[in-house]
């Protein structure tokens, strides 16, 4: 480990100027904070968090819709644990559960389907959030429900994809990125090929990174080396799991069940083609069609700067609400409530108390 740190110091000296790398993926943000890596980077290297936290970028109106469903008698809302504490306009699934709503935490969308089979008199709605890593698991589950004729199961889809969001960030004048630490597990599914447009169109290096502290260090070294050598290309640090083409079975499954759509990213706005919606062949398992779910207007809380944090133009401590009004026990925006939101990670692992 010390050798990697030493090598990074050397390469950083060759680069000389200040560089900013964006960890797109929330799990990387968590890994960096949890291992105290920030202290070990050279002074001219700065890491910022990006919007790769599916919970953080889920709009309030999605949570509101989920809450409306949970309040309906005869409906069970099944969700990953990550969403339970996210605040909607004026409540959360956790609070609704305390008030008597049927909200069940599941580990896998397959568990939600099993729940539907076990409760034939109830409607089970699975909250479909997550990026390309999670999407094939939900696609498989929808297809299985269709194959087996399980009619009391549906998905409320808020799935999003990475490439168009990264492109939107790069077009944003306020955001300054010198290199991308690319998501590791999204890339298992999509292959590293999806990032080629970044060096090709913008001349910015990309390295697909694993999730151990050691992986992140190696990745930073590889990015700095590209910059020092005036190269911009897509490299794979996380070769244990990632190759150029990805998981074709998973990709085919996604294409079979989902199609591209525009998507609203909390704090950023609508990014065209960055979302997924369920194809009409599977409309019976699409909660917006089968259960008549309506999305209201997304209502951001005043003073909440999650959008700026997600775009990397503001650090958590620069937000006026951070640590004062907005804390993990009383989160205002999803960056604080999500277990891997930039603000939650910063608060949990890095805030320095008045010591």
């Amino acid at each position, binding site marked *: 480990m010390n050798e990697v740190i030493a090598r990074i110091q050397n390469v950083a000296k060759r680069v000389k100027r200040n560089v900013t790398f964006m960890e797109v993926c929330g799990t990387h943000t968590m890994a960096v904070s949890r291992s*105290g890596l920030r202290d070990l980077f050279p002074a001219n290297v700065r890491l910022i968090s990006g919007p790769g*936290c599916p919970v953080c970028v889920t709009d309030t109106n999605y949570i509101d819709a989920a809450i409306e469903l949970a309040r309906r008698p005869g409906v069970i809302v099944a969700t990953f644990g*990550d969403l339970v504490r996210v605040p909607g306009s004026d409540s959360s699934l956790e609070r609704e559960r*305390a008030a008597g709503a049927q909200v069940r935490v599941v580990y896998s969308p397959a568990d939600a389907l099993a729940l539907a089979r076990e409760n034939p008199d109830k409607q089970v709605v699975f909250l479909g959030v997550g990026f390309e890593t999670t999407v094939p698991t939900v696609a498989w589950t929808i297809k299985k429900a269709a194959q087996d004729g399980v009619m009391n199961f549906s998905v409320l889809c808020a799935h999003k994809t990475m490439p168009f969001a990264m492109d939107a960030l790069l077009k944003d004048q306020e955001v300054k990125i010198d290199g991308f630490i690319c998501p590791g597990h999204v890339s298992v599914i999509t292959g590293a090929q999806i990032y080629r447009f970044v060096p090709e169109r913008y001349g910015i290096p990309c390295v697909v990174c694993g999730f151990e502290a050691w992986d992140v260090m190696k990745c930073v070294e590889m990015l700095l080396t590209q910059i020092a050598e005036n190269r911009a290309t897509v490299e794979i640090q996380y070769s244990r799991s990632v190759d150029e083409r990805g998981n074709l079975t998973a990709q085919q499954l996604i294409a079979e069940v989902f199609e591209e759509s525009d998507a609203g990213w909390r704090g950023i706005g609508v990014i065209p083609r960055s979302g997924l919606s369920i194809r009409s062949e599977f409309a019976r398992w699409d909660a917006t069609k089968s259960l008549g779910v309506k999305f209201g207007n997304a209502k951001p809380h005043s003073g909440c700067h999650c959008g700026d944090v997600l775009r990397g133009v503001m650090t958590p401590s620069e937000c006026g609400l951070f640590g004062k009004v907005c804390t993990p026990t009383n989160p205002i925006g999803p960056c604080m409530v999500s277990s891997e939101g930039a603000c939650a990670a910063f608060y949990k692992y890095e805030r320095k108390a008045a010591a």
Partner: protein
Amino acid sequence: MKQDRILLAHGGGGSLTHELIERLFAPAFGMKELEDSAVVEFAGQRLAFTTDSYVVKPYFFPGGDIGKLAVCGTVNDLAMQGAQPLWLSLGMILEEGLPIADLERIVASIKAAAADVGVKIVTGDTKVVERGKCEGLYINTAGIGRVIADVSSTRVRPGDAVIVNGNLGEHGVAVLSRREGIAFQTSVISDCAPLWSLVQSALISGAEIHAMRDPTRGGLAVTVCDIAAASGVGIRLQESALPIGAEVRGACDLLGLDPLTIANEGKVVMVCRGADAGRVLDAMRGHPLGRDARVIGEVTEKPKGMAMLRTAIGGERIIDVPTGEDLPRIC
């Protein structure tokens, strides 16, 4: 968002539990220093007095049951206050339909655990509620002990050593594996055990012991945060020194949980004068429940009131108090 109802997280031992106690209970009853037991003076004697309720689900789990837990948990709270456990009360709330065979097994368990410690169950109560109003049974025990040492979370000083007697996270993982809806299997068994004789051996070793806490709900994380806050000191733990078994780590990796926040029921975190660490370790390692005792960190002056972790790669991060609910996550 202001809380207007009790949430599951309020019972998790983390920040929401703290909030509930600090904002509602403590001010109502004028309670100040909230340690594992209260120390009261009566007729020239210092007594420790504590109570705990047990709602563990399922009530039979690998390594123990709710009965054993009800004895050990309360006995350990007395032990953490440097008190020899003497008497317990036993209150039972039974669900209509509970098999009497299960109740008999649990009572036998309570009897065995009490005999093991040498504590007497002197009084009790039984209530029955309708089917569906509790899960099998709930137990409350209150305990009284005789204080033989002056320990308190407020007495910790910079330079002190932080010691734990063995592997972390076993009870929580064992119970979680039997919880419906989580669906994973493990051979980890609960570490549920009475700690008085282990604690006693350390207390009579001549070492200067400042504080003792058992890392139950909320795990080691809550314990070190509480001690740091109570004494206004910093605590720095070494990640590479934390004793966590491969199986517990595997279960935590699988579910996305942090081993530092998982409950233990047979562990003590002991904070002693730095120079006495060797003496404490010798005393503990001579006891069956302390064979793997080790120093896991030290007390520092700063950052005041916070606990930090020196990570394996040499970085540093805050050990935070969890909010209270362990949930399987995808992120």
